[in-house]
């Protein structure tokens, strides 16, 4: 670990003031950042601890839910409104990491956690994300856990978060702030695809702090779920995951649907194509399959991860079947 200074911010203004400095990084629970600092993959000069900020979960009059960026993952998953109104989110969080890590991890940190690509973690390897222009050792190496959608010749890594997949499906909005002011951004737009610049992972401006996420009122999200497929029963990142919210009308048609995939791309992948293929169509297995096909039409396998295409197809269908059965 490279030496750094540490400051604890009491409010957002102090945090963003400190966070604007070159080489500064915000510190949440540290479960990802500190690991990367130990590996010297991250070498911030200054850590601005933001775990003291906005630890509130507030239900607003319009039915939306505001979750402070410093709220711990466990607290989000346990919150009654989350469990009852957005079960997909509670399930996604609880499927991630371990109890201990979720107790430490914050919402802001979870959103901005970095890829688990083994070559990114090992500074003996070539990695465009770590050293722009160096090359990518994953493309011809171990890439069983890598992307099938939206990858580029520069980078084939995935975003590892479970929580973000649920947030993407729910249409969450991220609240941001820096010394220049505050703004909001849909979560699905926050993360970038790698294209030619995998080192730029988000649309965040310098020093921008996540202050909260906002879940829109989505009454039909009570019928939502998350399914994570992984290499062991617990404590493993998703190979493929599916977050889904389904609104089925009485006549068996899909009135509305939200679908997002994890473990398949450089960002939490909102399955817009599948959603479009489903809206107004029968909630049947055949339509679910066609929707999955539509979403995966451009999926491209690497050496080790071709199975993910079939796995994603099957998991999407199974999850939609399950929700359709529930609402029947």
């Amino acid at each position, binding site marked *: *670990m*490279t*030496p750094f200074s540490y400051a604890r911010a009491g409010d957002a203004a102090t945090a963003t003031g400190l966070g604007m400095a070159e080489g500064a990084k915000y510190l949440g629970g540290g479960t990802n950042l500190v690991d990367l600092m*130990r590996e*010297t993959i991250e070498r911030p000069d200054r850590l601005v601890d933001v775990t003291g900020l906005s630890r509130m979960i507030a239900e607003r009059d319009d039915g939306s839910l505001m979750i402070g960026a410093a709220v711990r993952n466990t607290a989000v998953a346990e919150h009654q409104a989350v469990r009852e109104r957005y079960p997909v989110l509670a399930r996604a969080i609880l499927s991630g990491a371990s109890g201990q890590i979720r107790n430490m991890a914050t919402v802001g940190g979870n959103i901005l956690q970095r890829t*688990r690509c*083994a*070559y990114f*973690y*090992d500074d*003996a*390897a070539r990695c465009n994300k770590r050293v722009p222009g160096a090359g990518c*050792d994953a493309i*011809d*190496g*171990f890439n*069983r856990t890598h992307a099938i959608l939206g990858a580029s010749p520069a980078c084939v890594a995935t975003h590892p978060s479970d929580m973000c997949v649920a947030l993407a499906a729910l249409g969450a909005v991220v609240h941001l702030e820096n010394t220049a002011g505050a703004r909001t951004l849909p979560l699905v737009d926050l993360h970038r695809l790698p294209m030619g610049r995998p080192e730029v992972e988000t649309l965040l401006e310098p020093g921008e702090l996540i202050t909260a996420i906002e879940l829109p009122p989505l009454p039909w999200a009570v019928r939502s779920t998350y399914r994570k*497929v*992984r*290499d*062991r*029963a*617990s*404590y*493993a990142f998703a*190979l493929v995951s599916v977050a889904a919210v389904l609104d089925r009308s009485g006549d068996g048609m899909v009135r509305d649907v939200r679908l997002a995939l994890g473990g398949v791309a450089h960002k939490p992948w909102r399955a817009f194509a599948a959603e479009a293929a489903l809206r107004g169509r029968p909630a049947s297995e055949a339509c679910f399959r066609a929707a999955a096909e539509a979403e995966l039409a451009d999926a491209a396998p690497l050496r080790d991860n071709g*199975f993910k295409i*079939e*796995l994603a197809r*099957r*998991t999407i269908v*199974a999850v939609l079947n399950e929700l359709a059965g529930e609402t029947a």
Partner: protein
Amino acid sequence: MTTIRDAAQKLMQTAIGLAPERWLPGGTPDPLIGRHGAIGSSVPRIDGPRKVKGEARFAAEVPAGNMVYAALVYSTIARGRIATLDTDATQAVPGVVLVMTYRNAPRMAPPALFMSDPRAAGASSLPVMQDDTIHWNGEPIAVILAETQEQADHAATLVRVTYTKETASTSFDAATAQAHRPDSVLGEPAVIEIGNAEAALAEAAHQIDRTYHTPRHSHAAIEPHAATVWWEADGRLVVHDATQMLNGTRWTLAGIFGLKEEQIRILSPFVGGGFGGKTLWNHQILAIAASRLSGRPVRVSLSREGVFRVSGGRTTTRQRVALGARADGTLSALIHTGIAAMTAYNNCPEQFSFPARHLYAADSFKLEQKVADLDMVANTFMRAPGESIGTFALESAIDELADSMGLDPIELRRRIEPVKDPTSGHAFSARHLLDAYARGAERFGWSARNPTPRARREGEWLIGMGVATATYPYYRMPGGAARITLTREGQARVAMASHEMGMGTATVQVQAAADRLGLPIAHVTFAYGDTALPPGTIAGGSSQTASIAAAVTAASEKLVPALLKLVGNDSPLAGLRAGDVEARDGGLGHRSLPERFESYASILSRANRDEISAEAEAPMPLEVQKYAMHSYGAQFCEVRVNAVTGETRISRFLGSFDAGRVLNPRTAASQFRGGIIMGLGLALTEETLFDARTGRIMNPSLADYHVPVHLDVPQIDVIWTDSPDPHAPLGAHGIGEIGITGVGAAVANAVYNATGRRIRDLPITLDKLL
């Protein structure tokens, strides 16, 4: 290798005359076999309370005044030379005390390779940091000592190094083209051929000919490797190590540093899991060298990454099993051949062909092991090396044969049960495999299995059952001595430099010594984990319990005559000889005259002695020369395979073991279960990702190297036949390793029964089942 075989042979011959009658082939069994006392009862671990309270000190916790902390820098190429090495920035970090590289490391002899001498403990014979040559990706190239661990770790990241790369052998597939037979496989021939197995196979009515792959595994004991070391002013060396080879480590270090063994003391009272990995690797040697250079005590505690890079694990193999059978299931041919990756500097060919040498009857055999040389960290022993993955291949093939013949796999094994060891021709000392099968089948409900694959389904889950044989040899290591001290208070202290790695060694030895001496267990202590004590044998090959018991028995046999010499004419024991008496009720008594008894306390106080000691070496393990001595088991598994995602979850598991007399059901159950859990990792999740382009291990962390977590492990039922082996001390066999054997095949066979898919390539990950 030949040297060790010859030496062992000579030792055996001279030892024949010294062995006690009852262990000589045909001799009488250990009298304790039939006795019910402390042995056989569920005594809780005596080290438990200290561990729970945090009072048990592990190697990385031993305090030392003025101590510095070590960090290692690992090479990032597999083969070549260091071209430039810049440590200026490292030296400049506050708190840094020493930067050691090949340039300033003291001259050290290469470690003596394990098995090159009975006392050697080196995991590899490569010299340690003696020049600029790189031998594997991850080899330590610098040691940084600093006042704090954080300073050392940071300074280590500032070492700047460039390399001149040389072509390295890092692809197993490529290296197999030059695979060759090793001189021996742990002292056994690399090849055994009986009859013409290929011809018999070709003519057989039923044939199975399959290739199986098993990956690398890394050790993941809860305690990463560590040592705290210092040099005394008089030049003596003290090493607090986490080791399963105390005396071997001392002898080997003496050779490396040019010391006499008496100048070195190794202590290792607690080891947080060994499994074959806690032997002599680079880190201890480097810490000792750096301590000498700096004049300060040094603590080296490997990071998890360090464990993956510096200490090896189970190697990868490609195995062929071919079976030729007649219509009745009996085998005309059994072929088990294959290749394991190894280095040119170690000797661990992963004895995967051993199970096939002893398990089943066949008319002809072809059993052959080869190795392919790679540039990688030396592979090593890992819980049932060979047998764990050898049974995966063999027991999968047996299942394939049974399935192809429409036979129940247990029934097939009944038909090929041998009457004597199929390759050596020796009589079995004790073999109750079919009994273990019968009991296991009954308790597991095997008869409910539908032999047709894919026949049982609950929702998305396909359910299947599988079974496989477990087997592991009985070993007792030569050498080793125990000392028994009896006090006037009627207490006994037993001492031997042996190892407690969490198995319950100390507990079981207290039980055994209590019965041997006729004392309650509360009156017996067992001292271990220190080379200042009489020499122990290695904690490996599941041999330690029997090895210690044999030495304690030998010491007790010296103690009894010494005690009788002390009794005066007034003693009820007056005039009796050792053969007339037995130890009982805290003293000695005539075997058939109850009134002729005197307590130890009385004997010693009458003789005006505070205590009396006897020390003796264990006799040579001649029992294995005459008998085929093995443990067995039947592993039963029920899996659920998700038809949508291919995820495999174990829903039930039962191990039914035939492993001699069980000395302590509580510690035994834990060993069996722990072995099975490790076997589930081998079956489903564990794989060290070795990048064939660079020879680099790409998942050196427990986030990415998947051992089973709680949710992966169902309730595991373990039962045992508890049948004593009349030719083993205490009637017992080692039980540390048998549990992992057969598990891989039991799972794979269950997966086949659930899905109709044969997975011959471990681990059974979901992508292979989609």
